[in-house]
């Protein structure tokens, strides 16, 4: 209980300022340390930490500039990896489960993701909002499968939102790597096959040794790797609603797509 309250307190502090709060706190801590310690190494470390925070803030702002409506810098201790998430991709079975190299039962297992996240300390977590009339569209699933990109433009908007999130992931990763944080790892939302290989008969990664057709565009989704994006969103203060096949637009204020980039 104590731990969860501490965690809640820390996230509340951050979300009030859309992520800047954490950085301010960190910078303040660093300044205090510098004032108290005259040791050269401590000073160098504090300067380096302050530099890291500035760069992470730049990445957060980049996500916002590229179309995210919310973005925060979080320590990876707040990234939730849960074995139930990948199971949920399969019960009830998502139509893309098993059809894409990133989606369960393929893709990174719970243990692989947990191991990967543990190798990083900081991440940028962001959200793209989607109008409820678009994402809670009862016909969405059947329209996607039929490949008819119409329905008053709603499906195009939905696809565009997923594409936007995928592009933010790649842009943030690229900038982070230019800053010298390499390798980074990015997670988008949904399945990449619908976005980039919709008209291809199969996911090439699953069928051949040639691998992905679009390695520079595709990312696994948070959920396909066992990351609980919804609870993470709730803990940073964003409203998130469960939207399934029978959800109606009037039942939710909006939908949300979440992305995450593990930076350093």
């Amino acid at each position, binding site marked *: 209980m104590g731990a969860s309250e501490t965690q809640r307190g820390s996230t509340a502090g951050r979300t009030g300022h859309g992520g800047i709060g954490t950085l301010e706190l960190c910078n303040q801590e660093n300044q205090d340390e510098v004032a108290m310690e005259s040791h050269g190494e401590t000073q160098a470390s504090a300067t380096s930490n302050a530099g890291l925070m500035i760069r992470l803030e730049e990445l957060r702002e980049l996500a916002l500039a590229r179309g995210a409506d919310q973005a925060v810098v979080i320590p990876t201790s707040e990234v939730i990896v849960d074995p139930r998430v990948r199971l*949920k991709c399969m019960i009830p079975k998502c139509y893309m489960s098993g059809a894409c190299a990133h989606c369960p039962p393929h893709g990174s297992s719970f243990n692989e993701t947990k191991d990967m996240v543990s190798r990083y300390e900081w991440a940028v977590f962001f959200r793209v909002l989607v109008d409820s009339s678009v994402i809670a569209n009862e016909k969405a699933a059947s329209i996607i499968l039929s490949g008819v990109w119409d329905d008053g433009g709603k499906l195009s908007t939905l696809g565009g939102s997923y594409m936007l999130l995928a592009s933010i992931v790649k842009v943030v990763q690229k900038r982070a790597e230019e800053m010298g944080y390499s390798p980074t790892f990015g997670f988008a939302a949904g399945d990449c096959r619908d976005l980039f290989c919709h008209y291809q008969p199969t996911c090439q990664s699953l069928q051949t040794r040639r691998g992905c057709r679009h390695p520079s565009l595709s990312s696994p989704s948070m959920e396909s790797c066992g990351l609980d994006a919804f609870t993470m969103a709730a803990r940073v203060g964003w409203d998130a609603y469960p939207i399934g096949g029978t959800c109606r637009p009037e039942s939710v204020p909006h939908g949300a797509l979440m992305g995450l980039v593990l930076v350093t």
Partner: protein
Amino acid sequence: MLREIQETKKVRRIPAQRDPKEVRKDLQSLRKRAIALGASHAAVISASDVVFSKALRKRVAADKRLPSIHWPLDYPKDDLEAAIKAYQNGIFFRVKGEAKMPDYGGGRVSDPNHRESMQRVYEIATVLESESFYMGYHLAVGFATGNCRAIFCAQESSCWAAVKGRKCVQPYKGRPSMEAAGIDPVAMARAKKWGLPRRKGAPLLAGLVMVV
């Protein structure tokens, strides 16, 4: 059944932390809902009450009459038992079947009355799962009984969800069964003192929805 889901849907925001009092209240309302939908018995259980059986999973894997994505439940990269144990609570329920009903395993269910009894388990599991989901328990999963292909898609040439790029033709009904996930409903019912079928080999029509 779809109408039942839609009528009761109130979408709740996913909370940062769950209020234990609200969780208890929700679990009780789901238990009552199971009874209202036709379950003869229903109980709120904790994850530690879920009994796994390797022998059961082996038996399901060996029954290849109507293979489907849910028979057996294909989850090769992850530990299914660990995933189910990661839940805290769920609803375990039972539907009374005809006394002379045989154990169909994963094969065709020839008697329409027997099929109807089994369908009731699927309906309860899917309604509870859906309602849990919209209550904000976004990771809720439901398990039913038997092989969903045998019950809903016996006339189909294959399980369409098992064909790459195709989706399940009964997404609001088809679920893996408890036995296909290696969960032993008989042992769980015995622990609840529900009274097991007396006839040897008689199936127990039970379902499980892990909620939170």
